[in-house]
């Protein structure tokens, strides 16, 4: 028992439970909002990219390639430090808003690629079936293609969401407190890396496990088929 306390001191970690809880909540909240943004952006961009219209697919492709080819931290900095006041908002984005939007736009590029692959994997027969009963383009997408496509790529979307959640720790660079920051608090104040880092790792793993089971559930509900 003694060596375990030497390795990882539960008593010290217990003192930081409020900080970890706050960090976990912050990470969950940031990730959730960024996820919603990324899935919406991703879906729109995926559909744009598959369009035959140059005015639609070219900007979409440029967006995806630019985001994927540059580091997230720099995207966060650009949005936070150099974006002027937004006319609609009447002010500049604050730390939290900037972080969430940067994170969402970043993940959106990756999500769009996954969703596009999912859409392309849906057989023509499905589209033709929908056309034959008189559905419009948007109806076909909304009721036939997208549900199947998303169910099919759900595990890949899950993997990307795991990346998004871990990436959310980068918003600490513009001063947002989140889960990793809570771990660093233990590290900084107590100089205890095991207690800081391993607790953080366990928290991320717990979020991941929850998502894993949620994806399995969602996939069964949406009727995603194997293969």
């Amino acid at each position: 028992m003694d060596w375990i306390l030497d390795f990882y001191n539960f008593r010290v970690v217990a003192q930081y439970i409020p900080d970890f809880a706050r960090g976990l909540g912050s990470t969950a909240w940031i990730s959730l909002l960024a996820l919603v943004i990324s899935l919406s952006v991703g879906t729109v961009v995926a559909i744009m990219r598959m369009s035959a219209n140059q005015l639609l697919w070219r900007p979409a492709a440029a967006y995806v390639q630019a985001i994927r080819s540059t580091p997230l931290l720099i995207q966060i900095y650009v949005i936070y430090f150099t974006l002027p006041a937004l006319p609609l908002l009447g002010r500049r984005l604050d730390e939290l808003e900037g972080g969430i939007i940067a994170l969402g736009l970043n993940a959106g590029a990756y999500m769009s690629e996954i969703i596009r692959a999912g859409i392309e994997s849906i057989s023509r027969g499905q589209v033709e079936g929908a056309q034959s009963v008189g559905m419009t383009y948007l109806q076909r997408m909304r009721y036939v293609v997208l549900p199947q496509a998303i169910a099919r790529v759900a595990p890949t979307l899950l993997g990307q969401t795991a990346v998004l959640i871990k990436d959310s720790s980068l918003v600490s660079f513009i001063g947002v407190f989140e889960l990793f920051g809570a771990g660093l608090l233990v590290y900084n104040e107590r100089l205890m890396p095991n207690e800081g880092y391993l607790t953080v790792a366990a928290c991320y793993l717990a979020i991941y496990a929850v998502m894993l089971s949620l994806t399995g559930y969602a996939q069964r509900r949406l009727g995603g088929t194997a293969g």
Partner: protein
Amino acid sequence: MRKITKLLGLGLCALGMSAVAQSASADVLKDIVKRGELRVAVQTQGPPVSFVDKNGERTGFAIEVVKMMAKDMGVELKLLDYDWKGLIPAVNSGKADFLAADMTPNAKRTLVLSFTEPYLYSDVVLYSKKSQSFVKWQDACKGGVSIGAVQGSSNVGLLKKKCPDSTIKEFAGGGAAVAQAVAADRADAGINDIASAAGYMIEYPEFKVLDGAPKRWPLSFATRPDENHLLRWMDNYFMLIRNDGRLETLADYWMRGPTWKKDH
């Protein structure tokens, strides 16, 4: 064939020896002298304490002290450059003999690491844009004012205590990111040690240093708690160079004015 066996035997011996070397560190100073190499974990936190200069050389006040140390020991110096996140593990795991950074000892930290007697005391100051109405640092300590600090630095705790009404923004990107935040009006003021702040004053003509210092931090090196001999040695060494004036010379050059800027 015999040659191969011999080589193999030698290899195994070396493996065994290295295992022994790892376990036998009752006194790391003995190991340092035996291997002829001093391994020091440093953090490139920025000028003037520790940074990479325009020639690509690692230098700064802490680095020059360590260089002098190795020379006086008569051993080679191996600088191991870590991010702050890797600094403590590097010492804990024995990758480095001690860590040389401008770390501030406190009651809790000293439970884990042994800190030397301070080799220098450094003032902490606040700075802001000249357009701000602040004069003294206390002027920034009020509701509605945001102060930027390096994430996890001792200054964060300091601000929480001295300026409880201000909004504290912690930036993970180091002192440069804090200065950037102040310049981009993302924070009304920033906090840092006086030497770093002096550097920003040159870079940003629109900045000013606020009067007074909320704190004077002691700066120490640190090592594993069981390395008593090394700790004693370092304390002795600081006393020595303080007495013969070499420490003052270095501190004057690096910490008390922009003299170093010309050379680095």
